[in-house]
């Protein structure tokens, strides 16, 4: 049930092995990548299974859309490989488990899914989100996180219920079909991951960037261009939905912010490093974070936009210490709308 839609044939026919040769961390040459591909297809232990840092990038790199990263995760679980130590993995699975605390209520469009980030619900405010309803809690957690832990089984187990919780307790009764996803991961879950595992999604996910972009058009008379340089920290999960990147450019343009040209952006983005620490790879995390922060600082950016709460928690303090204000993209838009950081 919910088998991964991975095509062995497509993978066998691939002659570029982009998923492996373009990896920023494994640095595989062509020959090694070919061998690794073979082992993966045979279900054997492979270097990538032990060393993958789970940055999701290969999902983007694969020119065939054949889900190489999800396949890696499947193999990890099949072969009993734990990218993150067992107790840490098991505890996280318990921590993020649904708690059955659902309070059905009528909602109205736009309905913003805050996933399991209640601490950011306060940012859904002002003209930008006028009339918005929010859904938040462990029972709406999108579960994509388990890709980092080699646990597709947890996604298969929990995701259908999460989708049902959202649809049956909130959207369906209220006659709302669209769900604005606050976090890249949620949008990635409902538009990429769920279909890849054959899980049906009855509602239409809307990416927060898409929502912001359109809303800024509606509020264009209120915009006071920021005239600031802004760095963008692209999260891992945005790799699942690379089509959303042009929206970031459009939003920046509309609010008069310059998306600074830097080395570790777009396809070359670096992971925030939290998951490296979970994998006990502190040296790698230190290195990646330093390169990323040095890169941001060199641009003279005044803000760094995060679209992922985990990235924000991980890097926010360090970014701030470099004289750059960490901020969510919707909060940056609020500033451009004259509504400040806390509702004006």
């Amino acid at each position, binding site marked *: 049930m919910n088998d991964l839609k991975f095509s062995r044939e497509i993978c066998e026919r691939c002659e570029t092995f982009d998923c492996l040769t373009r990896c920023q961390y494994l640095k595989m040459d062509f020959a090694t990548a070919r061998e690794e591909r073979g082992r993966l297809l045979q279900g054997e232990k492979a270097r990538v299974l032990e060393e993958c840092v789970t940055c999701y990038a290969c999902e983007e790199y694969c020119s065939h859309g054949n889900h190489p990263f999800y396949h890696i995760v499947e193999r990890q679980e099949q072969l009993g490989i734990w990218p993150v*130590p067992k*107790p840490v993995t*098991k505890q996280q699975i318990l921590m993020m488990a649904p708690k059955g605390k659902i309070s059905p209520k009528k909602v109205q469009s736009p309905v913003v899914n805050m996933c399991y980030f209640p601490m950011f619900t306060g940012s859904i405010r002002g003209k930008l989100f006028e009339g918005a309803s929010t859904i938040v809690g462990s029972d709406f957690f999108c579960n994509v996180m388990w890709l980092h832990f080699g646990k597709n089984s947890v996604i298969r187990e929990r995701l259908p219920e999460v989708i049902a919780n959202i649809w049956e307790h909130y959207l369906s009764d209220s006659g709302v079909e669209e769900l604005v996803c606050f976090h890249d991961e949620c949008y990635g879950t409902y538009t990429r991951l769920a279909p890849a595992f054959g899980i049906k999604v009855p509602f239409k996910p809307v990416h927060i960037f898409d929502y912001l972009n359109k809303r800024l058009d509606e509020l264009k008379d209120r915009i006071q261009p920021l005239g600031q340089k802004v760095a963008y920290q692209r999260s891992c999960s945005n790799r699942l939905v690379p089509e959303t990147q042009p929206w970031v450019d459009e939003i920046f343009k509309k609010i008069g912010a310059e998306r600074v040209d830097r080395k570790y952006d777009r396809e070359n983005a670096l992971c925030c490093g939290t998951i490296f*620490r979970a994998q006990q790879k502190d040296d790698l995390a230190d290195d990646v974070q330093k390169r990323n922060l040095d890169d941001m600082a060199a641009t003279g950016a005044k803000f760094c936009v995060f679209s992922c709460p985990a990235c924000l*928690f991980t890097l926010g303090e360090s970014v701030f210490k470099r004289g750059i204000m960490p901020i969510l993209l919707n909060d940056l838009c609020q500033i451009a709308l004259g509504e400040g950081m806390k509702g004006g």
Partner: protein
Amino acid sequence: MEDVYQELARIVGPAYVSNQPEERFIYSRDPGTMEPREPDFVVLPATTDEVQKIVLLANRKKVPLVPMGGGLVLSGLSRPLKGGIVLDLKRMNRILEVNEKSRYVLVEAGTSQGMLQAYLKKNHPTLKHSVPDSPPMATIGGNVLIHGSGHLSHAAGFHSEMLNGLEAVLPTGEVVKIGSCSISPYWFGRAPLPDLAGLFLGWFGTTGVVTKVAIKLYPNRPWQDVGVFVTEDPELVPEVFYQAAGVQVAEDITAWMAPKPDWARGFQHVNINYAADTPEELIWKRNLIRASLKKLIDQKTGGFLPLPPPMKKNFLEAPQTTLAQFADVRKGGGFEYVGGIMPIELFPNAYRAGIEIAARQGTTYSTGARIIGPGHCMMFFFAYPFNRADEADVERARRALEETNGLVLDLGGIPWKAEAPAQRQILGRMDPGTLNLMDRIRAMLDPQGIMNPGNWEVR
């Protein structure tokens, strides 16, 4: 007793003595489960001279005398078991001297942990003392005298080991100085003299009233971090302790285990706090600690939690305010714990037994441990919360505590700051020669038997 009251009022001033029901009620209790025992008087002296006069009075009148610091031991050691005078020493809270070069501070014994911490932060920011996790109202003197431990105990041992010297009023009224201060103007240590501090450490105020203490200070390094190492097999924890403590770069190593929240049940968390003078040094220490646990990490049987900086703040606090919050778990303002001092290899036994006791007594629990020195022993605590408005709940906690005291002794440990019933258990197992020595010391120092009677009573 009216004459005693009048005399006390003459000594400290009428504003600082009370025989009123309100003070007698409050000072008869501490926040633990022990039954109340009312004093006849509560006195708040401000100087050693006043303490001396009170001790002489108590001697003359054969009135029991119970010194009290913060009153936060939770095992009822500052309750006057046989009435008499409770001596609340917290007015004696002056910070007398900080010797930066030799890193020590001399304080009056009633100085609170919090105020010393704040004073050092402001005036001597490169120095700190070892802060226990009791609330900041706990006193320096009280905590040292009960062999307390805290945030530097992995680095430097029990707080009693950090004692450089003390001033005390003996039960017969003499004022004595113990340590280098008895000869020198400096309070640098207890060596090389015969160590008379042992006449006061761990005696629960039965051998005199300590009025001043000098304790060691340590570098207050500006960069701090914590790693939380998680396992799900208690058998691995002694190895975690042994390895991490063996590196000797951490300041504090503590374990915590609890059935709630749900995600914590069945896991053992070891917090390893370390500090450095530069970010590079901090990373170097982190890597040393991590390397010491490489085997477990490589086996995937343990690992550090990936805590983003905002989530580390609670673990970097000293004292940790979340520990006091355990008292509201039963919505009842109470908890008490048995702190078992024992070798680190007993961790799995203690851990499992604690869970069993709680289940048997129908109470919830929290357990943990603090490493003393480079793993020379640990203070393993078994904490039981209770609702003080529900006598049955209090009784459940009491029974759990009593059973736990017995367990600790059976395992080969010793309950720390033991309440009176546990003291009797301890004495019951003590070497007769040791017992006899304790008895002789008590009799010699306190012939009238006025000092905190009912505690450490050999006979």
